[in-house]
């Protein structure tokens, strides 16, 4: 039941070819030290599920630049020209998903749903290959759940049981990713004793968290 571990202890968890969810929105709320770890481990052929591929020198962007990524499932790659370049060279596969659909697909997996019907993407390229279902005369796309082997998330304040509080906009995809992976690792800006976060203030219950590591603070998170 000891959840607070060292980065060293996490190393055996990562294997080539894994599917990872990584929290953050343009690196805001992304666990940078866990990214460091992946780069150090040089795990390859990763499939990354994340809102975006960030910038070349920050967050998920660094994994792309390091050549560790085989595929990204994401809503946006525009801020990281390396992703676009590798895609054009056929070196990385990019599956673009509307941001709200990405969030719902991750949540659906975490919530045990078989899928959700969304109006987003109807009449666009996004509908290709997807089942269309009409409800009350309106067309929807059936979008399927999205899960991962490991979710790497970042919390601002994390207690030793894994209860998480996120500051500001660092919350973004982190809470839903904590629901949607077999193993959940949180990088904490600050680790506190159990009981220091009010039960009302817990944004991700510790029952979802497997491991806690101490990250950096602020902008270098």
């Amino acid at each position: 039941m000891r959840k607070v571990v060292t980065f060293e202890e996490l190393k055996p968890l990562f294997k080539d070819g894994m599917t990872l969810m990584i929290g953050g929105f343009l690196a805001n709320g992304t666990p940078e030290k866990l990214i460091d770890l992946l780069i150090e481990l040089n795990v390859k052929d990763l499939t990354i599920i994340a809102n975006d591929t960030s910038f070349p020198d920050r967050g998920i962007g660094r994994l792309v630049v390091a050549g560790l990524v085989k595929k990204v499932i994401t809503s946006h790659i525009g801020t990281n020209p390396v992703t676009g370049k590798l895609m054009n060279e056929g070196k990385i596969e990019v599956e673009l998903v509307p941001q709200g659909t990405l969030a719902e697909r991750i949540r659906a997996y975490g919530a045990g749903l078989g899928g959700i019907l969304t109006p987003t993407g109807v009449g666009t390229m996004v509908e290709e290959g997807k089942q269309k279902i009409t409800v009350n005369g309106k067309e929807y796309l059936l979008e399927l759940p999205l899960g991962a082997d490991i979710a790497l998330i970042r919390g601002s304040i994390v207690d030793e049981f894994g209860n998480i509080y996120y500051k500001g906009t660092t919350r973004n995809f982190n809470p839903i990713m904590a629901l949607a992976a077999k193993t959940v690792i949180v990088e904490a800006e600050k680790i506190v004793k159990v009981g220091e976060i009010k039960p009302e203030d817990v944004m991700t219950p510790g029952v979802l968290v497997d491991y806690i590591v101490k990250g950096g603070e602020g902008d270098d998170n």
Partner: protein
Amino acid sequence: MITDQELAKQIIAKRIAKELKDGQLVNLGIGLPTLVANYIPEGVHVIFQSENGITGMGPMPEPGKEDVNIINAGGQYVTVLPGAAFFDSAFSFALIRGGHVDVTVLGALEVDEEGNLANWIIPGKLVPGMGGAMDLATGAKRVIVAMQHTAKGQPKILKKCRLPLTAKGKVSLIVTELAVIEVTKEGLLLKEIHRDTSIEEVKSLTEANLIIPDDVKYMDV
């Protein structure tokens, strides 16, 4: 035979408590299942969920110390332990349906050889509604049925449920005051019996076929 109702319930609760493992997230149904909390073995720390929105539920408060803002799913005032979290109903059932609850203990009107469960309606007589039971039975990783072996002398473990189902094929283990029965692909496997009964008596009080291995043990209660 064990005719004392209170003793019967105690045996069931005590035996089920031994199934729980350190760190598990556990949801106890209303009524008899709730008693399981009284018998958790020392050194085992489980986290109790209440589907109205708690992880980390504690015992009933002392009289006069009730917090009117905190109830359990049965409508009783409860306490929360350090490390608890509150959340809304959609999130609570994301935990349940999404397989994040390790064990749920549910009462039953009937169970059958296929692991079907009926516990929410007696058509024309009793229609309380399913509450969270269908989601719990469907979504929890392990569904343990806690019930007395018979009702008014009539078997409740049947070849096939006659009442409308709560969930199909989801029960893992049946614990009564007389026996511990595992639901397997081959059928119902008698694992343990109480010292005050016999295999023959259990068979006579069970409509379903029971697979009787050579090493049926006595319940450790």
